[in-house]
């Protein structure tokens, strides 16, 4: 694929990839940093893109790799600051103050973005990027079984954190 066509694909997909980056990092500024790295990787890896494949899936893989590179540098606080359980509790001392302090929608997004990196990747791709288990496995370099197991653990964790809002009494 020639450079001009490739560049057009990158720029056409940029907004969608940015939204993916925001969901992964939970923060717009961190997402922009992530996307800079991803764009650099995309340019360098142009020749690995096979035209018969889905550009969206290929670019998603690039963004995920950039996210993982950032995660591996977590010691310097790149890309995300994963709140500890204590920090979450401090911000949201009770379920009701959590809803009062931040809309439920923000609260849920914050919990998703605070999952462990691997759980976050799987949940975001399946629940918000509308990928199938097979597509997610392909994008993340995992087996489908692994994807399903990781998704189950992610949902389990969120269910525990959102338990007060799931109880019939509370709804």
């Amino acid at each position, binding site marked *: 694929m020639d450079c001009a066509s490739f*560049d057009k694909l990158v720029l056409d997909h940029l907004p969608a990839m940015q939204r993916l980056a925001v969901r992964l990092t939970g923060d*717009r500024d961190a997402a922009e940093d992530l996307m*800079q790295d991803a764009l650099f990787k995309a340019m360098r890896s142009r020749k690995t893109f096979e035209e018969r494949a889905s550009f969206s899936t290929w670019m998603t893989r690039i963004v995920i790799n950039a996210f993982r590179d950032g995660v591996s540098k977590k010691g310097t606080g790149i890309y995300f600051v994963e709140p500890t359980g204590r920090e979450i509790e401090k911000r949201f001392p009770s379920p009701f103050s959590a*809803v*009062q302090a931040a809309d439920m929608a923000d609260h849920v997004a914050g919990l998703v973005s605070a999952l462990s990196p691997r759980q976050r990747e799987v949940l975001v791709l399946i629940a918000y990027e509308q990928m199938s288990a097979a597509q997610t496995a392909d994008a993340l370099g995992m087996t489908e079984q692994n994807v399903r197991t990781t998704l189950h653990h992610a949902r389990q964790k969120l269910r525990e954190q959102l338990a007060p809002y799931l109880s*019939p009494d509370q709804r």
Partner: protein
Amino acid sequence: MNEPSRHDQDALDELLAEARWPEPAAESTRRLAAYYQGLRRRQLTWRTASIGLAAAAAVAVIAVISPRLMTSPQDSGQVTAKIPMNRQPVVLAPQPNISLPGREPTALELIVFRAHERRQSPTLAVRTHDLSAHIGQAVDRLARTPSADADTVARSLVPHDPAGEAEETLAAMLRDQRDERAVAIVRLLSEIGTSRSLPILQAAASRPAMRSAALPGLIRLADASTLGGLIRGEIDASTRERLLIALLMREPQSAMPLFLMVANDESSELRRAALAAFDQIGDPPLEQLWLAMDDPRIEYRLTAARVLGRAADPTTLGRLMILADRPERRREAIVALLASPHPLAQTALVRASSNSALAGLIRHLQQMEPVYVSYKPIAQPTL
């Protein structure tokens, strides 16, 4: 551990579907696109330079190891093999045709000179001595007396400029000027400049010494996108308010999204400034706000609601009360009513609080809106 019930499974999915992340800012997307395009340009430049270096190295190697190839066939009497020149010559990027003794042109000077080159024609190259002298005097006056009113000084040029050449003359003068005279020229361009002066004014606004000189012109001429970029970088509150008002006066379809981004900025100071600017508009773009209330993004709708509520005219209030009856827009309507200074809005909220389901929502939203709402406790209706 018990397996989650089907009810919990569906409830969790509903909550997950509600998750809301902040939308990436359009400015951020533009920055990333520009970054990517910059990467591509650097890559092309590197490749061109690499090819050139490789070609030069190849020629040097051939010259060193095969001296016979360099002799003339007439001298040697032999057939000379052609030197393989399968490399393209290095193509240098076109450089601006500017020569200034002793230093590189500044960015502002390049902008000015390129704009001048594009417009250059034999007729424009002729300047009357009279106009030039008056322009020089005007610049001197503003440079010596910064407190002088630029508008008054600019008007003094009008009788001497029947052909409307002052703008071009000032732009051409700018490249040779420094400090106070350069600021004076930018002030004059702010007053008399047309859209042709926008590049100069935008470049000047990025330089601290010239920003205040350029802003009046930008407020007058710049499009919504440029104004949006200037607002965030502006420290002075009154200038920021002028920029916000100017933004609201621009074509609503392009201006409103930018305005709402400021009204939803992380900085509470910027949010308050946006609302204060909106309060000063005599004829606010209400229809654009109503359109924004149907945006798919909840954050956007809520911001529009906070602004719309301040309109306080009876028609808007009536529409908001009708909207509050729609469950899918009830939250936005209540946020707007909470933001309204109109007594009827408060009356409507008090009446709505008699409904226990709505009372909880109103109290919840009231606690969420401390920055935007003139807090008034909702009085319980008397029985």
